[in-house]
């Protein structure tokens, strides 16, 4: 079976510095959620930047739908159906929420489709509708994150790359996002998910992949990784519920 997106033996890094990714491979088939976890600075965001075309790999290949897209920019990648939601905050701060969301559909020619999608995301994230006309940069951190996610939902990509989508979100919004991930998977989308909320993410994901120092440390079905005690200690944190509550 052809994977929707596949990175093969990728080497990548920033500027002249030593490589961040050193022979990294991952494949995400359609209708699958692959979760990437790893310590801070392991190179998770770098993987997504390479997969979306923001960062060209030094060597290795990037395949989309079986096609070699190595070195293609984000515009071409988007045309092939690859979309990325960045880590941190990437709203257009001095544009309104409306402009932000509608720009998500920049590549859509069909106006009615755009309107329909906008309506859908407004319903999904009530705050987007409520603050439709305010400048996005004025929203709270979590609200901005929701606008960003809403923006990415304006198109209907084949591959979705999510970089810590739940960061800064309250439990309700986090659930919405995970529900949406599941819904996308069920619709046949390939999802590559980076999460520090690792346990929750692995519970949702089909496959897991632990990244450390730019290499795959271990990969396999998500539930198996969850059960691995050594992994738990090194990457996933002890299960807080098992600890005696602090006084």
């Amino acid at each position, binding site marked *: 079976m052809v994977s929707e997106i596949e990175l093969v033996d990728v080497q990548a890094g920033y500027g002249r510095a030593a490589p961040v990714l050193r022979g990294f491979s991952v494949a995400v088939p359609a209708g699958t959620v692959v979760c990437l976890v790893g*310590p*801070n600075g392991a190179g998770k965001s770098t993987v997504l930047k390479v997969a979306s075309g923001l960062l060209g790999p030094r060597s290795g290949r990037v395949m989309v739908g079986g096609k070699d897209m190595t070195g293609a920019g984000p515009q071409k990648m988007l045309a092939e159906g690859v979309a990325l939601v960045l*880590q941190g905050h990437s709203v257009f701060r001095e544009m309104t929420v409306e402009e932000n969301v509608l720009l998500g559909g920049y590549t859509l020619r069909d106006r009615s489709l755009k309107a329909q999608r906008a309506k859908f995301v407004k319903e999904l994230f009530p705050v987007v509708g409520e603050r439709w006309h305010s400048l996005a940069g004025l929203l709270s951190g979590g609200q901005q994150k929701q606008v960003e996610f809403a923006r990415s939902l304006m198109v209907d990509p084949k591959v979705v790359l999510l970089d810590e989508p739940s960061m800064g979100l309250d439990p*309700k*919004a986090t659930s919405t996002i995970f529900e949406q991930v599941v819904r996308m998977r069920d619709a046949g989308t390939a999802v590559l998910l980076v999460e520090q909320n690792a346990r929750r993410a692995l519970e949702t994901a089909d496959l897991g992949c632990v990244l450390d120092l730019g290499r795959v440390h271990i990969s396999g079905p998500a539930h198996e990784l969850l059960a691995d005690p050594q992994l738990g200690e090194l*990457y996933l944190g002890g299960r*807080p519920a098992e600890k005696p509550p602090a006084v």
Partner: protein
Amino acid sequence: MVTLKTVGLRKAFGGVVAIDGADVEFLPGKVNALIGPNGSGKTTFFNCVTGMIKPDLGSVVFGDRDLTGRAPHVIARAGVGRTFQLCRTFPRMTAVENVLAAVRPGGVVHGLRSSHRRTETERAHHWLTRLGIEHLAEAEARNMSWGQQKLLELAGVLMAEPATILLDEPAGGVNPALLDRIGTLVRELNAEGRTFVIVEHNMDLVMSISDHIVVFDRGRPIAAGPPAEIRADERVLGAYLGV
């Protein structure tokens, strides 16, 4: 040990009322948590308390000092340190310099003393080590990943040793394995007598380390109490946890 509290704090941005008459009192010498849904005013509350923005009404009281509307550096010197939600580091300084820069420089004249003193540098390395980013000591902050910067910022605040530490989402983007250690760290520092106020959406962390939780909704506190009580509070469940 001094108490941090606000009385009738209010801040509106145009039509949006971010904080709506908040009376909040944090327990001195304890780990306090401030939780609430997105947009409930937590960050704005921090900004008001630390002088980054001026409240429209109400006052911020620190012990017996009224610090309402004072400049941020004045409040910082009164012993309140903070981190930012969208983390802020000094991008073209190395990690060690970032941490060293957090040592309170004091007034202009006082500031003429040499920096980089041996003991201080050692302390800076100490904090980097404890937060697991010692290997990045000579790297510039702009070349770090999100989580690494988050940790670096935390190291800076800890280096400054304020009596009261406000953390805005310290766990956002930090690897869970490290999170446990941050929790332990907070507890240790708290045992040394520091007061913490932590804004956080990671409920596991909040519940495990805090002594006292204040819940915000739409700019005002709707509940306050120990974790067990908050966990059982229906208003909290409805407003925040969404169950």
